[in-house]
Structure formats: structure tokens, C-alpha cells
């Protein structure tokens, strides 16, 4: 088999993981980590030029192209941020240099697993990839080995495993449903074959399968009431991992869910997955919005904001139709970019101030103007104020669903407004007010943060027509 771009985006991170596990010296490995992420990103861009053929194991279509490019891009910027972040962690002795070999190898393994989940054409392979991604992040969340980090990692591990176990049961049921139609063996798990024949599958079995898949992968998406692992894992792990978790891993789990939704859509006798997803999405939005008011830890607060936004995205995809899907896709992209930018800022802020407690951070715009205003811009974006990208995508979600389900949309808007209030209330004192805590200048890398924010701002003002047609194609594909 010759190596095309599709296998290259798997091979580059896999090989780099092996190399980084061996090499000593964190300065060198941090740079190599960036180089590997850059190579993966460039390879993923080449997918637009030459489209590789799909096989029995790997798949390439418009849907996963969007996810792959977004994933590799955010991994690249996060690796740049991570380089400066861990340097500080080593200087203050929070991380031992010996751990970094492990950290970088895990980072690349995570990239490999996420890319594999996105390109897998076999639902069993996809499940394995999501499981590997979960295990690597569990290990990274626990890397500080404090009480809190261990508890967070343990909780994440237990809940994540239960979720992943339910997803496997769902996967087995899908195979059971497919077996009488497509026959025994490998074909029964190939997604393209399944979609082609899904109309003849036993609808009752498919329904039960989807219930398990929704619960299983939904745990990984962080939908309420299955979200309990998410805030802890975000708050206690290293900040680059929080950025990757929120910006990427949640999307990967959502992608798995979308694939199965597409399969169910083909079978008219099976339940419509839409209403289930809409319900879970709305519960997540309202719940997370209310939880925002009582947060004392800044990373935990933004983790709840991630639950809220995943809720909005799942709501949009649940409503379905070309417009709502387009809006959901745009919102997912904007959220990934904005939320990781926020975590970049928060990571440096927590390092400068030496704390994550909101009460101990104050007057950032005075003490560290660049970080302060960067975070401010990020928060303005994430609460959905114009003219940034999230305003536009939220506006699209609301306007595309209002005609079909006015009451549901009213609930959604209410959730968004409650969340806006919560974030605003908490972030005001952090930004302005009296300067609190240490006021040392930050040795931060501003490039990743402002690149993301710049893209979000640009998307809010002007969406390039290429992007619009691309997203429209995907939206049609999603049905």
C-alpha cells in the first residue's frame, strides 16, 4: 500500500510519539512536537488538493475533512502554546523534566488517536480510537499527581470507561442489526457499507443501539447529565490539555455520534435521533448556564461554558436540515477556536498569578494588558456578542430553528443569555477592579491566542465563499 495523505496524518503523529518517547531534553522535544504538529497540519491541508480514495478501514469525505483540518490546526497552535507553558512549569518545579518525555509522547499519541477516530471507516476501529484518546487524556490529566489531579483523573477514567463500554455495546448491536443484511464478517462494521444498507436493518435493534451509542459517546461529548468528569478534568490537568479537550476531543466524540445519526436517518422505520439529541442539548445548555454562577475556579468555569456550547451544537445537529447543520458546524468551529484561545490566555494568567481561583485574580487589564485584553476578547466572543464569529453562528442556530420549533428555541436563547450573565459577572472583577496577586510580566506566547481570536473575528465579519460552500456541502451530507 502506498502512503497517501490519509495514512500520513496517522503515521506522522504515531512515529513522532515513538521518537519523542525516546529523546531526552524538553527544549528539543517541545520544538519537535511543534514540527510534528505542523507536518500533520500541512498534510491535512493537502487533502483539499488530492482527495485520497476511501478503503475498508479508512474513509474520506467532506464531513471528516472539516473535522481533520480543524483538529490538526488546533493541535498545531496548542503545541506552540504548550512549549512556552511547560517551560514555565519546569522553572517553578511543578513538572519534573522526566515527565516531559511522557507528556510529549502522549500528546502525539492523542493526535494519532483523534485523527484515527476521524478517518476510521470501521465502527470498531473508531471505537478503539476513541478509547485510546480517552486513556491518553486520563494519563495527562493526572500528570501533576496532586490530590485534585488524581481525583479528576480517576473520575474521568471511571466515567469515561463506562461511557466507552456502553458505546461498544451499541456498536455490537449495530453489527447484529447489519448481519442479516450484509452478511457476516468485516463488511458488517464498515460504515460506508452500513449506510448503504441501513434501510433494510431491523429498526427496533437500531433504536436500542442508538440509545447506547448516544449515552456512550454522549458521555465523551460532555452532555448533561453525563458530564460529571468534564469540569474536574479541565481544571486539574495541564492547560494545553484543557484546550485540546474542549477544543478537539469533545468534537471527536460528537463526530462519532453524527456518523451513527447519519446511519439512522437512512432507515425510515427507526426512531428519529433528532429529538433525543435536541433534548440532551437543551438540558446541557440550561444546566451549564446555571452552574456558571457559582464557579470559583477560572478553568472550571470555562469547562462549564464548554458543556453549554456542546449543548448548543448538539441542539443544532439534532434539529437537522441544511441550515441548522450549517449553523452547528460553524458553531463547532468557532467554539473550538475561541475556547482554546481562552484556555491559552487562562493558562498564562494562572502561571503569572500562581492561582486559578477567581477571587485571587484581579485587574488583569492593568497588570498584564496583552493577556487581559486577549482573555477579554475571548470572553466577548464566547458569550456570543457581535461582531465575533460565535455571535454569527449562534444567530444562525436560532434563526434556522425558530420557525420550526419556536418554544425550544426560546429555551435555547434563555440558556445563552443566562450563561452570558454568569460569565460576565465572574469575569468583570478578573479583568478590571483592583489588581490582585503577583504582577510579574508574563513570558507568554501570544501568537496562538491572537491567531485564533483573529480568525474568529474575521469569521464574524466576513466568511469566505469557499468556506461557505464547503460547509454547505457537509450540511447537506448530514441531512
Amino acid at each position, binding site marked *: 500500500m502506498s502512503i497517501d495523505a490519509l495514512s500520513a496524518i496517522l503515521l506522522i503523529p504515531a512515529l513522532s510519539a515513538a521518537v519523542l518517547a525516546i529523546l531526552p531534553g524538553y527544549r528539543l522535544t517541545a520544538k519537535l512536537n511543534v514540527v510534528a504538529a505542523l507536518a500533520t497540519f500541512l498534510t491535512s491541508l493537502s487533502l483539499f488538493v488530492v482527495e485520497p480514495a476511501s478503503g475498508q478501514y479508512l474513509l474520506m469525505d467532506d464531513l471528516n475533512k472539516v473535522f481533520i483540518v480543524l483538529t490538526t490546526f488546533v493541535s498545531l497552535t496548542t503545541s506552540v502554546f504548550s512549549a512556552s507553558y511547560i517551560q514555565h512549569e519546569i522553572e517553578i518545579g511543578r513538572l519534573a523534566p522526566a515527565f516531559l518525555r511522557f507528556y510529549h509522547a502522549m500528546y502525539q499519541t492523542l493526535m494519532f488517536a483523534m485523527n484515527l477516530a476521524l478517518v476510521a471507516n470501521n465502527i470498531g476501529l473508531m471505537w478503539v480510537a476513541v478509547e485510546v484518546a480517552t486513556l491518553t487524556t486520563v494519563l495527562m490529566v493526572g500528570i501533576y499527581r496532586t490530590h485534585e489531579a488524581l481525583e479528576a483523573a480517576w473520575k474521568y477514567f471511571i466515567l469515561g470507561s463506562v461511557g466507552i463500554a456502553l458505546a461498544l455495546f451499541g456498536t455490537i448491536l449495530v453489527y447484529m442489526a447489519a448481519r442479516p443484511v450484509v452478511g457476516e*464478517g*468485516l463488511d458488517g462494521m464498515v460504515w460506508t457499507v452500513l449506510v448503504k444498507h441501513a434501510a433494510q436493518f431491523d429498526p427496533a435493534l437500531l433504536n*436500542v443501539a442508538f440509545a447506547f451509542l448516544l449515552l456512550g459517546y454522549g458521555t465523551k461529548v460532555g452532555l448533561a447529565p453525563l458530564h460529571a468528569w468534564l469540569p474536574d478534568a479541565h481544571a486539574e490537568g495541564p492547560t494545553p490539555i484543557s484546550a485540546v479537550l474542549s477544543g478537539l476531543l469533545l468534537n471527536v466524540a460528537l463526530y462519532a455520534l453524527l456518523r451513527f445519526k447519519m446511519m439512522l436517518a437512512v432507515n425510515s422505520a427507526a426512531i428519529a435521533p433528532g429529538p433525543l439529541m435536541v433534548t440532551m442539548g437543551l438540558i446541557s445548555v440550561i444546566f451549564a448556564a446555571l452552574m456558571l454562577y457559582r464557579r470559583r475556579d477560572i478553568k472550571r468555569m470555562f469547562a462549564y461554558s464548554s458543556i453549554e456550547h456542546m449543548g448548543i451544537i448538539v441542539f443544532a445537529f439534532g434539529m437537522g436540515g441544511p441550515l441548522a447543520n450549517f449553523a452547528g458546524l460553524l458553531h463547532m468551529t468557532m467554539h473550538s477556536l475561541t475556547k482554546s484561545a481562552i484556555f491559552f490566555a487562562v493558562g498564562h494568567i494562572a502561571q503569572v498569578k500562581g492561582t486559578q481561583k477567581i477571587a485571587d485574580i484581579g485587574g488583569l487589564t492593568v497588570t498584564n494588558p496583552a493577556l487581559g485584553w486577549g482573555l477579554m476578547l475571548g470572553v466577548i466572543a464566547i458569550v456570543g456578542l457581535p461582531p465575533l464569529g460565535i455571535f454569527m453562528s449562534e444567530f444562525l442556530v436560532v434563526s434556522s430553528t425558530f420557525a420550526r420549533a419556536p418554544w425550544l428555541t426560546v429555551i435555547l436563547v434563555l440558556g445563552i443569555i443566562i450563561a452570558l450573565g454568569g460569565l460576565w459577572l465572574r469575569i468583570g472583577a478578573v479583568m478590571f477592579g483592583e489588581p490582585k496577586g503577583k504582577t510579574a510580566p508574563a513570558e507568554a506566547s501570544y501568537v496562538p491566542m491572537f491567531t485564533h481570536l483573529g480568525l474568529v473575528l474575521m469569521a464574524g465579519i466576513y466568511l469566505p465563499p469557499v468556506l461557505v460552500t464547503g460547509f454547505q456541502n457537509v450540511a447537506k451530507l448530514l441531512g
Partner: protein
Amino acid sequence: MSSLQFDIAHLLAGCLVLASFMMLYQDRLYALLNVYALHASVLALSVAWQAYVQQAPHLYVTALIALVFKAIIIPVALHRIIKRLGIHREIENVIGIGLTMMAGIGLVALSMVVMLRVTPSADALAREDLAFALSVVLLGLLIMVTRRNAVSQVVGFMSLENGLVLAATGAKGMPLVVEISVAFSVLIAFIVIGVFLFRIRERFDSVDVQELDRFRGERR
């Protein structure tokens, strides 16, 4: 398929559910591990029988993994961990044993109702297997939520994985990819758990998960 073959497969799968029930009422860690070893042995027998009935030799590998790895190596290793940590005392249950058993019976009934109703077209063996497998999975979940001790939660999780293996082997002709992955995931899970247990031991005097709860970020 002859009725004898079906009866034996049925019997073995039923024994697995029974073993899950036995795990529910154990109140000592060593006893719990012993029952888990029994659980894994029954699984190995059941998978081997499926391999024979379906004439699928690759399933013998899965059975062997279940026997060697899950029924022998893991229980022995956990025994040693418990001894080293000195936590062989009683397991604290969140709710009483009577109530747990009632909940277990309810879960088994639920999985029978759900699975038998949605699979009328599948062959009888696969139907029964799936229904039993779902029971084992749900009972594993029940063990996990009713125990506070980290080791017994791990055991609950492993019994849940056994249920998944039963389901995967019951689905005739399921590609090998999945069986390997299931065995593989157990392996990884065990390593991860081992690492965590030791780290937890470094920091705490107990592996009681409730102990961990005190350190929640929000209550600092």
C-alpha cells in the same frame, strides 16, 4: 444447531449472570476477587463453547485470554496490591445488600425485556446471549456505583467488560478486530488502574474514593 448445544451455551451465559450476582453481595475484597476469578473462568468456558458451536477457531484465543489474563493474572496481581496496601478490610457499600440485590434483579428483568423484544428476527442463541450480556453489563455498573472502594470499582468495571466480551462473541462472525480490542482495552485499563492505585497510595492512606471526594476543587 442442536438443542443440546443451545442449552449448554444458555447455561454458561446464565452462570455468568449468577456470578455477577455473587459479586454484588461480597463484603470482603479478597472474596470479591475470588468471585471475579470465577466470573472470568465462566466467561472463558462460555466463549470456548461459542468457538466450538460457531466453528470459529479465533474465538479460542479470546477464551484463552479470558482464562489466563482475567481469571489468573489480574486477580493474583490485585491480591498482592491489596496486601501491600493493607486494605483487606470490609468493603463499604453505599446502600444495603438487600436493596442492591433487588436493584440487580430489576436490572436483569429490564435487560431481558428490552433485548428479547427488539431481537425477534435474530437466532435464538444470539438473542439469549445479548440479553444475558446486557444483564452482566448493567450488574457491573451497579457494582461500580454501590461500592466506595477504588479496588472494588475496578473489579466492577472488569466484570462489565466481561459482559461486553460475551456480547461480542454471541454476535456471530463479528470481526476479530473487536475481540482483540476488547482484550487490549482490558490490558490498558489494568495498567492505567495499577498506575493510579500506586499513585493514590503515594498520596493518601486510603484508596476509598470518598476520601478523594474531600479534595474537590470547588470546596477548597
